[in-house]
């Protein structure tokens, strides 16, 4: 007899499936209310297992940022603090030289074949 709380596709697959449907989701804990990303089987804050995906607001600010240099030029890699609380690695679109810590950004799903969450500057979105 398996435990029905863990039935169905796991949180990684469920998150990817939502992303494919155009939804950038984070998990909310039914026990302590905290939002978490990346998704997991347990709440990393309280250990609870009652986690539900909800669409993220998409609002965030740049917590830290770097420009990765190569012969082709620079590209941004940032850690974005989501309005819901968790942080994630992502990229801020546009000129990498003007991405600064504290910049307000908005999430967008980019790419059809392999969708990824990227961020635009809020004032341009």
């Amino acid at each position, binding site marked *: 007899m398996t435990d029905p709380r863990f039935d169905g596709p796991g949180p*990684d697959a469920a998150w990817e499936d939502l992303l494919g449907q155009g939804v950038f989701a984070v998990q909310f804990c039914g026990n302590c209310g905290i939002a978490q*990303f*990346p998704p997991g089987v347990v709440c990393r804050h309280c250990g609870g297992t009652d986690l539900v995906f909800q669409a993220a607001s998409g609002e965030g600010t740049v*917590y*830290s*940022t*770097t*420009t*990765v*240099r190569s012969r082709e030029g620079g*590209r941004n*890699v*940032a*850690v974005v603090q989501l309005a819901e609380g968790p*942080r*994630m*690695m*992502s*990229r801020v679109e546009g000129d990498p030289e003007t991405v600064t*810590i*504290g910049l307000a950004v908005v999430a967008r799903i980019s790419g059809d074949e*392999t969708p*990824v969450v990227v961020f635009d500057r809020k004032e341009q979105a």
Partner: protein
Amino acid sequence: MTVLLRGKIAIAGTGNTRRWYAPGRSAFEQLAEASVLALEDCGLGLKDVDALYCAHSTSGLPVLNIAERLGLGPRLRHADGTMVGGASFLFHLRSAMSALAAGQCDVALVCYGSNQASAGGKLVPMPDPQPYEEPYGARYPLSSYALAAARHMHEYGTTREHLAHVALAARQWSKLNPDARERGDLSLDEVLSARMISDPLTKADSCLVTDGGAAVVLTRADMARDLKRMPVHVLGTGIAVSHRQIAAMPDLARSAAHQSGAAALQAAGVSLTDIDHVMVYDAFTICTLLFLEDLGFCAKGEGGPFVASGAISPGGSLPVNTNGGGLSCNHPGMYGLFTLIESVEQLRGTAGARQIEGAKISLAHANGGVLSSQATAILGTPDTV
């Protein structure tokens, strides 16, 4: 229940191949050579080893590979292949101490080898996919450290010049170490104008890529007393595990070294002012700043001005990374064990031109992953026990 281990376990022997570029010698061969050297150093042999501790960047089964190659298998009574990156060997030290103290083994070998430089692009690291970071093309591990450095600059006003002074201090020390890989002159301008890889970190902010092998032999202190070399006692250790991916680090400007350091100091029963010599794993210049702050050697956020004042350079108030560190001495993939080896060198008084006069207590600190794991060990001469 707390078992008091202070001083009960000692580093009896050390081995260092000092082969930073050795084409044709495999990682396991570097490790085997270092193990032989460490055992000979204290007058023991492979037949005496009954506990094995190792981690490897290209093998997920290091204990099995190494036990077979060194012929240790039949006699092993304890083993630990914990892999937390470059700090693994200080985790191993802590694990071996418990096993030795409990009588589960008598002679423990902690060992490592790498041919990262001479093998060039032929090395295939163990797979460890990170699907939530992979799409963004960060350079691993450098961009993760760059993100920490950028945040430290933002919060505390740390500058690229501050970081550069870490590299300059390391080079001043390596000039005093005939075994260091890089010993040439280095100027502030050269560091600042080095190729930018992932802002704000340049090539000059990054550790070397070398080959190398290292090993230490641990025994209970009563046995170590009767061996060839002066025992270096382990006064205290502490470990901390923080995250795997950099975005999951709770505070990018503060590492978990504050936990491992506090635990080690408490176990050792010493305070920071008792420490004569310090080794911190400098994979990148920002690491030295973070660890000096988080271990408490300067106030949080003041690592930059502290280092730029010359405090950690030869002649400064706090000798740090006296072998030249990962930045200027050697960095064979995972460097953690080399921090212990230089601490032992200094406490034995055999460090030559870079010897810290009268050093009795040394702190060695290692980091793994992307500021992910932290481990601190405090070592002392016999009269500190």
